[in-house]
């Protein structure tokens, strides 16, 4: 009898240990999913490797650190002496992004506070959906809006000869970045536990006191993260900035000056260069610079946002 039981048990154990088709399939799928999982890492490294591969020739041969970063002269096609200075392009990108943030930061934070803390029920759903839809408008459409709608408005309102300038691109970029910043900032406000609000309300605080004294301080890292992501987005924006800035190499002295952005320079010139030429490699060098800057901004934003989650 005992042996019979033993045999049955061992047969059952054998059966469970038997490596069936499903067991192998499970292992294969696990490997496939893992490949999918690490693909993001592979791609981000791949992006860096490939733009470096194409741009390294410039950095190794023609690169002059002082000229590249401190000369305002971007003259890659000059017949007498080619110069590759990106200072004016950096100034263009920075001025447009800066103005965009002046427009976008207060409004998107205000909107986020309204949506997260004041609005209720249907109003709130409607506002959230609207903000989400606004974030979906493609950048080339924004560029076209700058070119065809904002341009005449600026010329008429401020009586200036050209409406494609820092002001135009800044407003366009601000309107473009604001919905994204609003969503992220709203998430940050939502992440503040309700018990914080309840505790403050139980002490007799008004809603505004709860927001200003409890919610905002608790969410400040998340809000900072939202702002940084907006900055990163502005820095990397291409089509809107290309079409609305006027695309003239210039260190701006007022918001009515036309400028040219780093991204836009690549977009307009890459098609006209021969593969492997110094000019071509210099454009990839700008690409490396953009990649590194946005990488740092995104990384910082992520670290700041994650800092609050840990607490």
């Amino acid at each position, binding site marked *: 009898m005992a042996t019979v039981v033993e045999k049955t048990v061992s047969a059952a154990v054998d059966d469970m240990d038997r490596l069936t088709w499903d067991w192998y399939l499970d292992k294969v*799928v*696990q490997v496939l*999913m*893992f*490949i*999918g*999982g690490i*693909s*993001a*890492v592979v*791609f*981000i490294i*791949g*992006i860096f490797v*490939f*733009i470096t591969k*194409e741009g390294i020739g410039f950095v190794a041969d023609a690169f002059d650190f002082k000229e590249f970063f401190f000369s305002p002269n971007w003259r890659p096609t000059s017949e007498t002496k080619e110069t590759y200075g990106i200072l004016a392009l950096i100034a263009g990108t920075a001025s447009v992004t800066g103005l965009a943030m002046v427009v976008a930061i*207060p409004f*998107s934070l*205000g*909107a986020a506070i*309204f949506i997260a803390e*004041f609005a209720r029920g249907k109003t709130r759903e409607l*506002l959230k959906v609207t*903000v989400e839809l*606004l974030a*979906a*408008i*493609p950048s*080339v*459409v924004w560029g*076209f*809006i700058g*070119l*065809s709608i904002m341009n005449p408005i600026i010329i008429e309102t401020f009586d200036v000869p050209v409406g494609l300038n820092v002001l135009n691109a800044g407003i366009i970029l601000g*309107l473009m970045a604001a*919905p994204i910043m609003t969503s992220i900032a709203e998430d940050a406000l939502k992440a503040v536990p309700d018990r914080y609000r309840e505790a403050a309300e139980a002490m007799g605080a008004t*809603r*505004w006191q709860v927001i200003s004294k409890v919610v905002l301080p608790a969410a400040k890292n998340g809000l900072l993260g939202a702002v940084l*992501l907006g900055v990163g987005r502005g820095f*990397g*924006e*291409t*089509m809107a900035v290309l079409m609305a800035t006027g695309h003239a190499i210039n260190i701006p002295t007022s918001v009515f000056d036309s400028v040219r952005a780093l*991204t836009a320079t*690549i977009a307009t010139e*890459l*098609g006209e260069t021969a*593969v492997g030429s110094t000019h071509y490699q210099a*454009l*990839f060098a700008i*690409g490396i610079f*953009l*990649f590194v800057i*946005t*990488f740092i*901004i*995104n*990384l910082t934003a*992520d670290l700041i946002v994650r800092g609050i989650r840990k607490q």
Partner: protein
Amino acid sequence: MFAETELNQKNRRTQRLFRILFGLMTLALIIPVFLILATLIVKGGPAISIDFLFTQPKNGMTAGGVFPALLGTVWLVIVALLASVPLGVAAAIYLSEYAPDNWLTRAINLAIINLAGVPSIVNALFGVGAFVLFFKFGTSILAASLTLAIMTLPVVIVATRESLQAVPHAFREACWNMGATRWQTIRRIVLPNAITGILTGVILEVSRTAGETAPIMFTGAAFFLPFLPQSVFDQTMALSLHLYVVATQVPGVPEHLPFGVALVLIAMVLIMNSLSIALRMYLRGKKKW
């Protein structure tokens, strides 16, 4: 009841003030965009017709329709989805169902965030370096779509991971207790419960992909082509690039034409996004747990 003190009144006034202020700020973000959209509709509306959608551009793109560009965008989106959806869903399944909490998983999450933040023109450079030159696809639909796929991969991953994680853990445990393998559990229990959520992410990606311009400029989209693409190794026109071209590169374009192109593009994107949002709301209403 307590009588309202002066302090109470002051607090209430402050609150009302800020409520109005922030409400106005919200409106200040939304109203200009609606005015802009209205302008687009007013100026571009007259250009739109069935003919506009289904005829070739004529007279050096100063007349005629947008058919090749529309078709090209459809090509680009489909090929990009074929590449990014399987990869993105696999990545999301790995992160949600398999990934241990270690440095590699943190690296993957960080990579996803950074991939979403890479400037579109840098993606274009990558597409040129990798797909056009290194893998020798040339400037083709394939190269452009793969560039778009990598760029929009984070959209699929994030949406899919969210909908997978929304499936209660108890469902999985019940299945494991029946002796199912991990994959059987994922295929029979987790994916069927998450499929609508994944779909919202995919639709969102379609809209993102259709609107991108910079990544396809040098990888596969052409300013003008007299013929339609026959395979993924051909170049194509695309709606987004077509808008840039007719708005900035072609002289003598009648005003309504670029407005019409912009309107078609924006309608396409907003319809896709609304669909995604509607699906998400329907899903939220249907959820049983």
